[in-house]
């Protein structure tokens, strides 16, 4: 493996990791507060769709990402209404929303754009950071990215700080661990959970938007192709910690980028094994590291006053 190969591999890996990481951070924040989002995939898909729709309507990348946030928030709102207001089971609501979003976005796409599904839109541009981008091997992957990927990288320590060092983080954790106790200390559990869910919707929307507005420049039905579920799993494998989620997402993406290249180079291995490799490696590596893998106590349990 020469340096070029590694550098290009890492560029591909970071491209694949960006959308996963943003969605995983959102899900991490939400699960910390006790709200599980099986519809993370649907949130991403809604963001991927509304981002492209926003870009088509405004030709403005910032507004397009705002639209992507709106898409994710809309799905979050439905989940909140179902679970917080009507006390629906969070898992059931999540599964239902995934199906609803897939159907709705596909229907809107076909009805709005007709056969021309591949209409290309503006994409968010890469900004090379001087000097850093020229570092061998990692320079292009880490320092010649678009603003959203940079923000995602900053989001990891920021999420850690927010969860561990701020009153809001404490409230989130309290709402996810002991909602009754939190309530007795004057924390409005419902409000905190709504906030966590909204953050998750917004971030998953951006993650989906990054998929379409970053790499592809177009939307196709079901374009997220299961990446929401990978982000969901990354939170678990990352032991509900921001840097853990980052590790899970990066490991998955590096192995995924590698397996594609391994096929290109003609590794004499069944391709099914190579396609499954990122999943296998992530499970094995992170299952081995797990010391105390305990989800928030009240995860998925609706709080009733």
């Amino acid at each position, binding site marked *: 493996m020469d340096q070029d190969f590694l550098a290009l591999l890492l560029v591909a890996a970071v491209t694949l990791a960006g959308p996963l990481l943003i969605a995983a951070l959102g899900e991490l924040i939400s699960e910390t507060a006790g709200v599980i989002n099986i519809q993370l995939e649907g949130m991403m898909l809604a963001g991927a769709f509304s981002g492209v729709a926003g870009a088509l309507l405004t030709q403005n990348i910032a507004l397009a990402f705002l639209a992507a946030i709106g898409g994710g928030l809309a799905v979050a709102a439905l989940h909140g209404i179902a679970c917080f207001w009507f006390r629906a089971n969070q898992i059931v609501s999540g599964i239902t929303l995934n199906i609803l979003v897939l159907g709705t976005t596909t229907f809107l*796409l076909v009805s709005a754009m007709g056969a021309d599904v591949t209409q290309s839109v503006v994409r968010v541009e890469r900004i090379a950071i001087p000097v850093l981008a020229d570092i061998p091997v990692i320079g292009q992957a880490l320092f010649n990215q678009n603003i959203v990927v940079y923000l995602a990288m900053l989001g990891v320590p920021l999420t850690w700080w927010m969860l561990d060092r701020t009153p809001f983080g404490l409230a989130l954790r309290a709402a996810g661990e002991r909602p009754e106790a939190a309530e007795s200390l004057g924390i409005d559990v419902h409000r905190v959970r709504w906030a966590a869910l909204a953050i998750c919707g917004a971030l998953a929307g951006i993650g989906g938007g990054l998929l379409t507005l970053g790499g*592809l420049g177009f939307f196709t039905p079901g374009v997220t192709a299961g990446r929401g579920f990978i982000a969901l799993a990354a939170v678990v494998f990352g032991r509900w910690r921001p840097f853990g989620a980052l590790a899970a997402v990066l490991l998955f993406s590096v192995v995924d980028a590698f397996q594609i290249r391994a096929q290109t180079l003609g590794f004499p291995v069944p391709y099914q094994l190579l396609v499954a490799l990122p999943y296998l490696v992530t499970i094995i590596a992170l299952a081995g590291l797990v010391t105390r893998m305990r989800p928030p106590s009240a995860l998925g349990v609706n709080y009733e006053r």
Partner: protein
Amino acid sequence: MRPRMGHLGLLVAGAMALSACGNGTATDAPATDGSASEAPASAPASAGDEQLRVALILPGETTDRGFNATGEMAADLIEEEYGADVTFTESVNPANQADVYRQYANQGYDLIIGWGGQFTDGAVEVAEEFADTNFLVVSSGASNGSNLASYDTAIEDWQFLAGYLMARLSETGVVGQVSGQCFPSTAANQNGTRDGALYANPDIEWLATYTGDFEDPTAAQQAAQAMIDEDADVLHTNLNQGVFGVVQAAQDADGVLVVTEWLDNSDTAPDVIVSTLNKSYARFVLNKVEELVNGEWEGVNERFPLPDDWGPGVFDTDLLPDDIYEEILEVQEQVASGEIEVERDETCPGQ
């Protein structure tokens, strides 16, 4: 999943709605007894016998300007030729195929067509449960001697042309194909392209990837990028919606061309789509429907070679040099006549 009614289905629904209106307004004219049960029976346009009902199961959306669009073409052909009531369901997840087959069988469809080899298992399973329903899977080899049949094309005949074209267009001497999943017919597809490329230029460097998902454009884009990183300058695909990711990767690179498949879609990216391989399973579906209508249905597998009246095997574009286009047509003639014998190789990687 979004069930779509065929045009005739809509007509029937419309006719029923109209007759309902008629009943509502003409209150004093006593309607004939049992008009409700008569209406559906008299609505179908085809005279005489009970109307043929056909359902298609598609892996993706018919808006893909590719494989699924040819599925819609097949549906239209059956509707036009036989006045059949044709319905299809798009974006069926192969994991749910048995349920979808079962639902259509329960609804009394005469013929259920799985559009793609990935819909083989469900047909095999459900064909046993519904002896009076006929099942047909395209791009598959399955059959049970009674109500399950399949057909396939000698896809390597067509792919050979794509590979030949790619090798002739390449300046770097590296070409590649991004595919979705590997099963016998898709392996024959990819290996056929390879053989055509090697026939045109024995020194060509051939790259091949299966992303595992025909529909995922992000994975396809990354696979194409990996090939471009290895200096490939002409790419081909065996994907559904994933193809758009490959086209995007080509557009983001310098001097990379794409040969797409199925239907002429070069207008979607005229800067990189140099040609489209003109192939389709649609035309051959009529052979099986004809059998069914004439009571000659056989539960067997058939494979159709490249016919000599197929028309140009690749679509011409502004990007495609005239001499190469003419050359491809000559090679096509040689393949159709058997002068060039294309071997079918169903080997997947690592086998």
